[in-house]
């Protein structure tokens, strides 16, 4: 597992039923592209997060496949519909097999 991977997600605490909300996510990860070389000239192997998904109560919101051209600390901003109260689940899949998860509750009100 890569070091110091910390997901951060910004979701409003509550929304009106059927409202569209903006979600911002950031995960700290150095996203080694596989293009860089170390001091001895050896290529540093690629190590990135290759997929990010967001689901709400089991229904998919967005599914992103990432390539090495995504910046360090991958950031995503997107919009989601909130049909009812429930839980947003965010999942990041690392090249090394690690899976990072974060979830946020949202209330209707």
């Amino acid at each position, binding site marked *: 597992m890569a070091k110091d991977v910390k997901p951060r997600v910004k979701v409003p605490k509550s929304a009106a039923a059927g409202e*569209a*909300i903006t979600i911002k996510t950031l995960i700290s990860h150095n996203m080694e*592209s596989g*293009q*860089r*070389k170390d001091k001895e000239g050896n290529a540093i192997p690629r190590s990135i997060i290759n997929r990010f998904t967001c*689901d*709400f109560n089991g*229904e*998919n*919101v*967005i*599914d*992103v*496949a*990432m*390539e*090495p*051209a*995504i*910046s*360090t600390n*991958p*950031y*995503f*901003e*997107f*919009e*989601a*519909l909130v*049909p009812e109260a429930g839980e947003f689940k965010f999942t990041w899949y690392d090249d090394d097999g690690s899976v990072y998860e974060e979830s946020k509750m949202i209330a209707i009100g």
Partner: protein
Amino acid sequence: MELTRRNAIVMGAGALFVAGLPLRVSAAGEDAIAAFTGGAEIGAGDIKLTAPEIAENGNTVPIEVSSDTAAEIMVLALGNPTPGVAKFKFGKLAAARHASTRIRLAGTQDVVAIAKLDDGSFVQASATVKVTIGGCGG
């Protein structure tokens, strides 16, 4: 036509010109596009790509894609060593087919967004980004 020295030079230059044009879109980029579209024709239409005209730091260039009817949007940076950037698939609960992220660019180049619309057709938009410091490390 008689093959004189002059003719040979003209023909050679012509061949270089013809061969040189497709090189602008790298082979890897073409492959990625073909894999996504399955060889279908790409038109213009309901896709918008927002990127800065000048990016001082190629390590983190903010981009934004949006469309009203896209099911999937693929972003390519054709001037990078590997052209793929990201592929966004919008699910049932996506309120808008819109997403923003930050990407790496190796140098000044065209960034292309290709969207697969709900009706199965493909559209694309591109933006040229001038990069002052490249983002792929030496």
